[in-house]
């Protein structure tokens, strides 16, 4: 039953990826494989800082290699739309340390 955590249910959905170097990349999941390499379309990076609001850097079509992936989150678009990114201040995420 709970033996395969497939990403199938997230295909064609907007997802938020946290990479091992601490970046947050948002885009549409187009594909993935057994090793969780992923293809992200219409992607943009959300850069958080303590000095200014969230910046968005448009990236386009991206392949993210599995060994750089930390978390893949299903973005709730309604919730996301209700956030005021210009007011958010935060330290950037730390990189993963093994």
């Amino acid at each position, binding site marked *: *039953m709970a033996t395969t*955590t497939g990403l199938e249910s997230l295909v064609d959905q907007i997802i*938020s990826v946290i990479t091992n170097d601490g970046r947050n990349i948002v885009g549409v999941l187009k594909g993935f494989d057994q090793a969780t390499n992923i293809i992200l379309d219409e992607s943009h990076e959300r850069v958080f800082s303590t000095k200014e609001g969230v910046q968005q850097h448009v990236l386009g079509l991206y392949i993210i290699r599995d060994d750089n992936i930390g978390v893949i*989150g299903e973005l709730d678009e309604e919730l996301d739309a209700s956030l005021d990114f210009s007011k958010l201040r935060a330290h950037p995420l730390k990189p993963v340390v093994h």
Partner: protein
Amino acid sequence: QLFFSYFKDLVGQEVTVELKNDLAIRGTLHSVDQYLNIKLENTRVVDQDKYPHMLSVRNCFIRGSVVRYVQLPPDGVDVDLLHDAARREARGG
């Protein structure tokens, strides 16, 4: 294989997953796989003010390799059972 089976039995419980980048995510254990990748539902980040990065995420897939700890409810664990199983696994392996 022991922990894979163990986590399968924990599906449905509330857990907190602490990652190697210090982020901590609380949620309901939805599923787990052979790599101990974890899918959580109804997630909220533990320190939301410090880590607003996942405010609009309610379900997530966490790669097994980035997990530092999985915090379990103390009464959700049969410690003796786990202890026995681990001893057996250690002998057999």
